[in-house]
């Protein structure tokens, strides 16, 4: 593979990494969210802090963790706290506003509500997934969440089978009325495109597509309509960004392979 060829996974990771701002506190799950947070420190946000729900704050990641409880997250942290500390950091209205959370899910609806619990009826599910873990907590507390999704019709649905993690709920100011913290879904990053949420109704719209991806293909792979009037094209990964991903973040291709 030459430097300028890249996989959809690499594009997704870089797209997320670019949105992380300096001094953000980045909540990571397993998988590409960790790689995105690692990459951001080398791209746009050298002073961002990676932290995990398990309580590890500012881990020195010499090797890729394969779970948020991997002993690799415990090495040379600023603080090895507990789960109670980690979630309190997000619920706390001073620190929580600085946290960006990266989540994934099995289903998402137009308002960014996420399902990672079941497909089918809750009490007699057709498919059972892992469940919330810390996702509902993160989605309830932090100022902005970035959601990684595979771009498939069965995953972008008008109504999720089970609301595990709150997005903008029914839109408008539903989130505030429910009592949730200020903030909410910010971006949805898929293997084809990036979606945002509009300012007042908080409904999903198509923000940008990756190079070579047609808007029609993006829309065809979603189970609900999205506004495409504002669509832009995402700049492809630069040689430097790819170099950081491949040689510094995940040289063994444990996640990106």
């Amino acid at each position: 593979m030459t430097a300028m060829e890249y996989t959809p996974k690499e594009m997704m990771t870089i797209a997320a990494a670019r949105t992380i701002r300096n001094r953000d506190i980045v909540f990571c799950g397993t998988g590409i969210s960790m790689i995105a947070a690692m990459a951001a420190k080398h791209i746009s946000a050298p002073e961002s802090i990676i932290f995990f729900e398990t309580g590890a704050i500012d881990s020195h990641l010499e090797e890729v963790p394969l779970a948020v409880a991997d002993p690799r997250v415990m090495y040379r942290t600023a603080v090895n706290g507990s789960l109670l500390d980690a979630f309190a950091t997000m619920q706390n209205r001073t620190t929580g506003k600085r946290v960006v959370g990266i989540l994934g899910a099995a289903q998402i609806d137009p308002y960014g509500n996420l399902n990672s619990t079941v497909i089918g009826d809750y009490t007699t599910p057709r498919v059972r997934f892992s469940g919330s873990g810390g996702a509902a907590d993160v989605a309830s507390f932090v100022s902005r969440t970035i959601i990684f999704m595979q771009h498939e019709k069965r995953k972008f649905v008008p109504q999720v089978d089970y609301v595990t993690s709150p997005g903008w709920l029914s839109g408008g100011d539903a989130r505030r009325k429910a009592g949730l913290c200020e903030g909410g879904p910010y971006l949805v990053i898929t293997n084809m495109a990036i979606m945002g949420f509009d300012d007042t109704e908080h409904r999903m719209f198509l923000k940008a597509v990756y190079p070579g991806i047609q808007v029609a293909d993006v829309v065809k792979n979603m189970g609900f309509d999205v506004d495409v009037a504002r669509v832009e094209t995402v700049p492809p990964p630069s040689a430097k960004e790819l170099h950081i991903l491949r040689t510094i973040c995940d040289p063994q291709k444990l996640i990106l392979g």
Partner: protein
Amino acid sequence: MNKTMTLADAVDRYIEDGCHLSIGGFTINRNPMAAVYEIIRQGRRNLHLYAHSNGQGVDELVGAGSIAKLEIAYGGSGRFASTCIRFKKAVQEGTIAVEDYSNYQMSLRFLAGAMGVPFLPTRSGLGTDLIARWGFSPSMRTGDPKLPDQKLCVIDNPFKGHTDARKVVLVPAIHTDVTIIHVQKADCHGTARIKGLPFVDVEQAKAATHLIVTCEELVEPEELRDNPDLNQIPPFIVDAVVHVPHGAYPTACYGHYDYDPVFLKQYAGLARNETAYRAYLDRHIRASASHAEFLQEAAGDRLATLKADPSTGYARDLDRR
């Protein structure tokens, strides 16, 4: 008081059929696996298990048919199983009853139990199905004196919008009959030290009627008292201290050994196949008289490759593909 005993004695004495249990650790780290295997060996049934994200241990207890009811936030084992396989199967086939919470909700529930209050408030999960949908029916709840009548309660902020919160969720306290944690160091009286992240082990320990501590190293009390700032578990909450080297295997124990990627991968494969899984339970777990025998059967010479580098706490450059 000397509380050391064998693992078989500790499980025999404290774990009864149908008891309410929690185990420490998180996904692939510091699960009290030796104790989990002993519970399976002794054929305990109908257990009510409380978990936040205690992955591998939960999956093996569910897989062996030890669990009837499960309150859980997350059933996954990192990259090895994004959803724990036996857990997934048991829920889909309806062989266990499940109640879903979030990790913070479960952590607060243990803390409430440890504090001796009936509930604690949070803003987590407002507007979600974690609140709207119940896995345990109201009659199941009222029929079990150990369970609260409601899963979660939402109330208006009684302090009228103080801290800008309109509403809060109340999460009910958990009191387990028994909690089991695995730690790096303990003495014979029960004082214990966890190295690396403690997860929710300390709150789980304090929310229990009985506490079993398994440890990598059984040390002299003087050694722990030389650095008391590093200890988390006071001796008076501990009922049994069991010395089990590699007691968290195949999960990791920071500073001692890494998780075993080969075992966890094999496990994910055989957990998908009934015949293979039954053979695993019989040959690896039930036929082993002790954890040492299990280790020999399951890991053999591979155990040495998992040894943690003292400078990092994990096995550097371990092949994890």
